[in-house]
C-alpha cells in the first residue's frame, strides 16, 4: 500500500490536499476535485456486455451444428427453388424451425442468467448514504457519493465511514472493521500514527467500516475505487474464475455428441455419395443426420433441471447466482468455512460464570431454550449487579417487542453480552441502572485494563456509595482482599487464589474471553453524599475490594452447526475452519462444532500427554492440527499440502485474506472441489478462486456477494449441507434426464441410416424429430429432476470429478446400443406394419425409394397391384412418420419409467411421483401434436410398439436386479451407469 497520509503531519496533509482541518475545502475546490476524481463509490466490476452474453448462448457446440444444418437446409431450398424442382417447402420449414429452436433456447438460457443476475442486484443497498461534511467552515449533510479527497468529515457512533479518512480528532472512537477483515473486534481510532502500515495504524479509518461509538473528525484521503476496500475488490476481479465441474461435464459431453454427429453425418455423406446420390441429396442427408442425432432439447432440459433445483434451494435460504453452482456444491469435497457468523452466532454471549467456587454454564442457545443455572445464591445477585451497573452499553430505544437476544445494542461486544445477559437474568436494566444512580465512571483503557463506576444505592436511606469494577481477571484479583462466597465475604487467601487460577485457566482453555468482577461499599464517613469523585485522579478506594466472580463470554456456535458438520463428515466432505480469530478460541469452537472430533489430538496435545518435545511427535499420529497465520507464513506450499494431507481435521487461525487464498489453492492442488464461505471484502479473492464461493446474505459485504456463486440468506452453515444434498441429487437426476434424452436419438437416427442404405421410403421426417425433441420429450425429462434420491446420498463420498463423469461410457452404450436399439426395432416394426397394411410389403419397400420419391410417377404399383399417385404415397409416408413417432413415444414412456432409478427396482422406488403425471401429459400431448403431423394413425398402430415397451421395462428390471445382486460383477461394471 503506497499510502503515507497517516505518517505526515497535519500541516503537510493540509498542503497536500489544499484543505483546512478546521474549515474544510472550499465548495469550488470540492466541485473541481469531484470533476477530476469522479464520485465516491465503488464501481461494479465490469460485466460482460449483454449482447455478448446473448451471442454466447447462440454459439455453443450444439447450436453451431444446428446453424450449419439450417444453412444446409437453406442452400438445398435455394437450389431446388432456382431449379424449379421444388417438391415441397419442407426444407425451408426445417431451416426456420432449427433457427427458431436455437434462438428460443438461447433466449431461455439468457433469461435464466439474467434472472440470477437480478437477484444479486436486489441485494445492493439502494439507500444513498449521507455524510456530515465541513466545507467553507459550514457543516453540511451531503450525499456520500459527492465526497472528494480533502473533505473534512465528521463521524459518530452508528455511522458508516464514508471514505478512507485520516483522523484529525477523535473522542472514544471505535470502529468495526469486519467488512474489511471479517473480524468484528472493535478497534479504537486516535489521531496518532501508531504503525507504518496504513492497515494497522490507528489514525486511518477505512471506507465501509462502521463507527461503533464515539466521534471523530478526519480528512478524506481516498475515495471510490482508490480506497483500500476498492483496491481489494478490484483484486478479486483479477482472480480467474474457475469453470464449474458441471460446465466441464456438459462441455465434455457436448463435444462428444457434436463429434459423433459430425462423424455419423460425414460417414453417411460419403456412403451416400458412393452409392450414387447427388451431392445436394448427400448434403441433405448430412443435415438430417445431424438434426436426428443432436439432442436439441437437452440444453434446455439441463437448464430447467438446474433452475428447478436453484428454486428449491432458494426456499432453503441458498440463493444461487450461477445455475451451475448448484451441482458444484454436490461434488464439493472440502468446505473452507469462516468461523464468525457462519459456524457461530456472531454475537458475544455469556457462556460461563464462576462464583461460589463453582463454574456455572449459562444458556448460549439462540432462542434461550437451554438450561439455566441455579440463581439462588447471594453471590450471584452481587455479581449480576456488578455486571449490570459497570456497563456502558445501552439498548437502542423502541425495541421492546423484540426478543432480548435480537435487540440492537450500542456498545462493544462484551458489554453487549453482559447487558443482554443481565437483562435476561434480572429484567429491565435501564430502569435498574436508574435506581442505582451513577456518580462517576472510569472507562476501560489498555493500561488500567479495568473499568469502574460508583453508584448511589437504591435504598434512599442507605447513604453509602457502591463501587463496581470489572476488567482483566488477574488485574481485578490484585485489587481484591476478600471474596464473596455464598453471600459471605471471606478473606482471599492462597486457597481461594488457587481456586481462582484453576477456574480462570479452565475458562480460558475453552477459548472464552474472561472478565473479573468485584465491588465495594465505600465508607459512608470517608465518602459522604456529595463527595466530589474525580475520574482522572481516582480519589477513592480502588483496592481491598471484594471479588464477586468471573464471567466468560464466547461467540457460541449455532445450534444446527454440529449436526451439519457431522453430516458433512458422513458425506465425505472435509470441513476446514479458516478464521482470523485466536487459535485457542478457534480450536474451542472447532471442537464444539465437531470440526475437531472428540479424541482427536494435535501434535501439541500428544506432546503434552506423552511429556515429550513437540519435535519428537510423529506428525501422522495427530488427526487434528491448528495452524496460525504466523506459522502459515513460514510454510512452503509443499509443506501446506503435506499438512492438509496428513491431518484430516484442520483449523487455520489468525489468517489474513491472502492466506485464505493460499489455503484454497492448496486444497485445489490436492484435487479437491473447494467451497469457501466468506463475508468480508477481503474474502472476495478466495471466494472467486474457490470452485464455489458462498457469501453470507446478512453479514456479507457487497463485494463478497459479487464474487460468490451462492449466497446464504440466513448465514447458516447448515444451509450449505442442504445445498450439498441437493447438488448431489441433481447430479444423479441429470444423469437420468440425459440418459432418457439420449436414448431417443438412436430411433431418430436409424430411419435415416436405413433410408440411405436400404432405400426404403423415409420412415421419420426431420420436423417430426424436432417435435419429439422439443415438445413431447421435454416434460418427462424435466420431471426426472424431481426424482427422489435412490439411496442415502449423504452417506457417499463426493464424486471424483475425474472418474465419475456425468455421461460415462456405460450410460451412452446402454442408452444408445440397448434401449435405443430396442426403440428402433419398435419403430421399424410399426413402420413396416403400417406400410404392409396399406399394401406395401416389407420386401417391396426395400429399394423402393427412387420410384417412391419420383414426383412424375403417378401409378406406382403396390404389392396388391393397386396403383398410387405421388401425393397418395407422400400421404402414406407422413402416416409412417406418425407411426414411427408413436412408437418412439410409447417406448419413451417405458423409458421414463425405467430411468426413475438406476439401481433400485421401480417397485422399490414407487411409481407414483411426478414422472407419472408427466407420462400422462405426454400421452395426452401426443395426439395433440399428432394433429400437426399430417396423418391420423389408425388405433392399432398404437399397440404394435407396446411389446417393445414392455421389453424395455422388463429388460431394465433384469439389469437392475443383476446390478443389485452382483455388485462388482461384469454385469454391474458394464451395465450400471
Amino acid at each position, binding site marked *: 500500500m503506497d499510502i503515507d497520509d497517516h505518517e505526515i503531519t497535519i500541516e503537510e496533509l493540509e498542503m497536500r490536499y489544499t484543505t483546512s482541518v478546521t474549515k474544510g475545502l472550499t465548495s469550488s475546490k470540492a466541485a473541481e476535485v469531484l470533476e477530476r476524481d469522479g464520485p465516491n463509490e465503488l464501481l461494479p466490476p465490469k460485466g460482460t456486455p449483454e449482447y455478448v452474453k446473448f451471442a454466447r448462448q447462440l454459439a455453443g457446440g450444439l447450436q453451431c451444428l444446428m446453424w450449419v444444418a439450417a444453412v444446409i437446409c437453406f442452400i438445398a431450398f435455394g437450389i431446388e427453388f432456382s431449379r424449379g424442382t421444388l417438391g415441397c417447402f419442407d426444407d425451408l420449414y426445417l431451416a426456420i424451425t432449427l433457427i427458431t429452436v436455437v434462438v428460443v433456447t438461447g433466449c431461455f438460457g439468457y433469461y435464466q442468467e439474467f434472472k440470477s443476475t437480478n437477484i444479486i442486484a436486489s441485494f445492493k443497498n439502494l439507500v444513498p448514504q449521507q455524510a456530515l461534511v465541513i466545507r467553507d467552515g459550514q457543516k453540511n449533510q451531503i450525499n456520500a457519493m459527492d465526497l472528494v479527497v480533502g473533505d473534512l468529515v465528521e463521524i459518530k457512533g452508528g455511522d458508516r465511514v464514508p471514505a478512507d479518512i485520516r483522523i484529525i480528532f477523535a473522542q472514544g472512537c471505535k470502529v468495526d472493521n469486519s467488512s474489511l477483515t471479517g473480524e468484528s473486534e472493535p478497534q479504537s481510532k486516535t489521531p496518532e500514527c501508531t504503525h507504518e502500515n496504513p492497515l494497522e495504524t490507528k489514525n486511518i479509518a477505512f471506507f465501509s467500516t462502521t463507527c461503533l461509538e464515539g466521534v471523530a473528525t478526519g480528512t478524506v484521503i481516498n475515495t471510490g475505487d482508490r480506497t483500500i476496500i476498492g483496491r481489494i475488490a478490484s483484486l478479486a476481479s483479477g482472480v480467474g474464475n474457475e469453470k464449474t465441474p458441471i460446465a466441464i461435464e456438459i462441455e465434455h459431453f457436448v463435444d462428444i455428441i457434436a463429434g459423433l454427429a459430425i462423424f455419423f453425418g460425414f460417414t453417411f455423406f460419403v456412403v451416400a455419395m458412393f452409392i450414387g446420390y447427388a451431392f445436394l441429396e448427400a448434403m441433405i442427408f448430412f443435415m438430417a443426420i445431424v438434426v436426428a442425432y443432436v439432442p436439441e432439447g437437452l440444453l434446455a432440459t439441463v437448464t430447467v433441471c438446474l433452475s428447478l433445483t436453484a428454486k428449491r434451494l432458494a426456499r432453503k435460504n441458498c440463493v444461487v447466482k450461477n445455475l451451475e453452482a448448484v451441482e458444484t456444491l454436490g461434488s464439493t*469435497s472440502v468446505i473452507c468455512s469462516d468461523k464468525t457468523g457462519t459456524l457461530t452466532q456472531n454475537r458475544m454471549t455469556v457462556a460461563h460464570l464462576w462464583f461460589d467456587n463453582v463454574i456455572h454454564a449459562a444458556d448460549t442457545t439462540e432462542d434461550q431454550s437451554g438450561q439455566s443455572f441455579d440463581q439462588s445464591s447471594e453471590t450471584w445477585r452481587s455479581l449480576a449487579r456488578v455486571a449490570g451497573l459497570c456497563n456502558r452499553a445501552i439498548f437502542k430505544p423502541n425495541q421492546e417487542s423484540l426478543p432480548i437476544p435480537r435487540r440492537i445494542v450500542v456498545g462493544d461486544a462484551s458489554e453487549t453480552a453482559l447487558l443482554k445477559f443481565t437483562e435476561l437474568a434480572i429484567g429491565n436494566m435501564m430502569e435498574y441502572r436508574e435506581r442505582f444512580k451513577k456518580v462517576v465512571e472510569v472507562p476501560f483503557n489498555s493500561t488500567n485494563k479495568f473499568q469502574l463506576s460508583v453508584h448511589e444505592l437504591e435504598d434512599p436511606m442507605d447513604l453509602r456509595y457502591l463501587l463496581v469494577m470489572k476488567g482483566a481477571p488477574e488485574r481485578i484479583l490484585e485489587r481484591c482482599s476478600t471474596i464473596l462466597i455464598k453471600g459471605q465475604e471471606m478473606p482471599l487467601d492462597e486457597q481461594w487464589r488457587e481456586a481462582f487460577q484453576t477456574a480462570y485457566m479452565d475458562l480460558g482453555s475453552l477459548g472464552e474471553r474472561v472478565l473479573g468482577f468485584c465491588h465495594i461499599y465505600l465508607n459512608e464517613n470517608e465518602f459522604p453524599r456529595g463527595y466530589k469523585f474525580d475520574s482522572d485522579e481516582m480519589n477513592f478506594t480502588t483496592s481491598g475490594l471484594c471479588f464477586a466472580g468471573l464471567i466468560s463470554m464466547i461467540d457460541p456456535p449455532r445450534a444446527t452447526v454440529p449436526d451439519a458438520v457431522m453430516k458433512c463428515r458422513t458425506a*465425505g466432505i*472435509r470441513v476446514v475452519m479458516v478464521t482470523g480469530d485466536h487459535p485457542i478460541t478457534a480450536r474451542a469452537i472447532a471442537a464444539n462444532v465437531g470440526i475437531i472430533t472428540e479424541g482427536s489430538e494435535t501434535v501439541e496435545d500428544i506432546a503434552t500427554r506423552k511429556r515429550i518435545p513437540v519435535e519428537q511427535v510423529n506428525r501422522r499420529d495427530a488427526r487434528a492440527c491448528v495452524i496460525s497465520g504466523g506459522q502459515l507464513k513460514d510454510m512452503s506450499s509443499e509443506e501446506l499440502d503435506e499438512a*492438509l*494431507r496428513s491431518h*484430516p481435521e484442520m483449523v487455520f487461525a489468525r489468517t489474513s485474506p491472502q492466506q485464505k487464498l493460499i489455503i484454497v489453492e492448496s486444497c485445489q*492442488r*490436492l*484435487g*479437491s472441489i473447494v467451497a469457501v464461505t466468506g463475508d468480508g471484502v477481503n474474502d472476495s479473492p478466495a471466494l472467486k478462486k474457490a470452485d464455489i464461493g458462498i457469501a453470507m446474505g446478512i453479514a456479507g459485504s457487497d463485494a463478497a456477494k459479487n464474487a460468490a456463486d451462492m449466497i446464504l440468506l440466513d448465514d447458516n452453515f447448515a444451509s450449505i449441507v442442504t445445498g450439498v444434498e441437493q447438488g448431489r441429487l441433481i447430479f444423479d437426476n441429470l444423469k437420468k434426464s440425459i440418459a432418457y434424452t439420449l436414448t431417443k436419438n438412436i430411433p431418430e437416427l436409424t430411419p435415416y441410416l436405413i433410408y440411405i442404405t436400404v432405400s426404403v421410403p423415409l420412415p421419420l421426417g426431420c420436423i417430426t424429430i424436432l417435435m419429439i425433441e422439443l415438445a413431447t420429450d421435454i416434460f418427462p425429462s424435466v420431471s426426472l429432476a424431481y426424482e427422489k434420491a435412490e439411496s442415502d446420498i449423504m452417506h457417499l463420498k463426493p464424486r*471424483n470429478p*475425474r472418474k465419475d463423469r456425468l455421461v460415462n*461410457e456405460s450410460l451412452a452404450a446402454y442408452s444408445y*446400443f*440397448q434401449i435405443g*436399439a*430396442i426403440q428402433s*426395432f419398435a419403430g*421399424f*416394426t410399426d413402420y*413396416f*406394419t403400417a406400410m*404392409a*397394411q*396399406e*399394401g406395401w*410389403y*416389407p420386401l417391396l419397400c426395400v429399394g423402393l425409394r427412387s420410384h417412391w420419391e419420383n414426383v*412424375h410417377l*403417378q*401409378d406406382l*404399383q*403396390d*404389392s*396388391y*397391384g*393397386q*396403383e*398410387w*399417385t*405421388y*401425393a*397418395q404415397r407422400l*400421404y*402414406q409416408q407422413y*402416416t409412417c412418420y406418425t407411426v414411427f413417432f408413436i412408437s418412439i413415444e410409447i417406448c419413451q414412456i417405458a423409458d421414463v419409467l425405467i430411468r426413475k432409478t438406476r439401481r433400485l427396482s421401480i417397485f422399490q422406488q414407487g411409481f407414483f411421483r411426478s414422472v407419472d403425471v408427466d407420462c400422462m401429459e405426454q400421452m395426452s400431448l401426443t395426439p395433440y401434436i399428432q394433429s400437426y403431423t399430417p396423418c391420423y394413425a*389408425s388405433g392399432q398402430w398404437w399397440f*404394435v410398439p407396446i*411389446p*417393445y415397451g414392455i*421389453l424395455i421395462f422388463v429388460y431394465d428390471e433384469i439389469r437392475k436386479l443383476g446390478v443389485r445382486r452382483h455388485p462388482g460383477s*461384469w454385469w454391474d461394471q*458394464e451395465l450400471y451407469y
Partner: protein
Amino acid sequence: MYERVDTGVKEPYFWNPRTHEFLGRTASSWGLILLFYLVFYIFLGGMFVLTMYVMLLTLDDYKPTYQDRLVTPGMMIRPRGEAMEILYNTKDTESFDIYAQTLNNFLESYNNSLQVQNNDECPPDNYFIQEDSGEVRNNPKRSCQFNRSTLEECSGITDRTYGYQKGQPCVLIKLNRVIGMLPGKDGQSPYVTCGAKKEDSDAIGELAYYPPNGTFNLMYFPYYGKKAQLNYSQPLVAVKFLNISLNTDVNVECKINSNTLKTGGERDKFAGRVSFKLRITSPKN
C-alpha cells in the same frame, strides 16, 4: 478419507502396451462385450422377425387391410414422357418414334388375339362381380376383354404413328387400379373429359374420344388384385387431338366424371384427373 491425486500420467488410449488394452479394453473384455451384444441383437432381431411374421400372417393376401389413401384413384397418361410432357417435331421421325414405341409396347397386351384367348366377353354397363363364397375362394377370377381395336384411330392398328406424324397425337388415359373400387352407380360408367387450362382454351382444338364418349365401362370393375385376377385388362380411354395448335405449349387437363368418385382436392393433382403438356413443333414450309 482424503483422496490422493491422480498421477496425471496419460495412458495411451488407442493401444496400451502395458495393459494390452485396445481402446480401453483388453481382448477378453472386448470378446465378452461383443458376445453380449451379439446375443442381445440376435434376440432383438429374432423378436423383430417374429413380430414381422405374425404381422404378415394377419394380412389378407387378396385385399390390403386399409385403403383409406386410395379413395380417389389416380389417373395417368401414356405416353407420359419426361415429366408429363409430350414434345415432338412432326418432321423429326425420331422425336415421336419413342412415343409410338411406348404405346406399342403398352398396348401389346390388349391385342385382340390375346384378349380373346385370355378374357371373357362380358355384358357391358354392369359390374363383373365375382364374389368368394365364404372361405372358398373363387379363384382365379376372370377378366373382361378390352380389345385394342376399341381404341379405333388410336389403336395403332390403322396408324402406326398414332397420329403423331400428322400432328393429331393420341394420348391414352388410364385410371389407377384400386381393389374393389366401384366407379359408378345406376349403370352409368365414368367417362373422361379433357380440356385446356384457361389460357390455352383456343389452342386445344377438337378432341375425339375412344371408346366413344371416353367411358371406362363398368364391366371392367371391380378389380380383385393381381393375385386373384391375373389377366386383368385395365380399361383405357384414348384422346385424339384433331387440330391442336402447333408450335405452342398446350396444357391439357383430363378428368374423370363419375357419380361416385370425387376428384382429389388441392393436395393431389393426379387424383381423378391428370394434367400434361403438349407441344408439337412443325416447321412452316
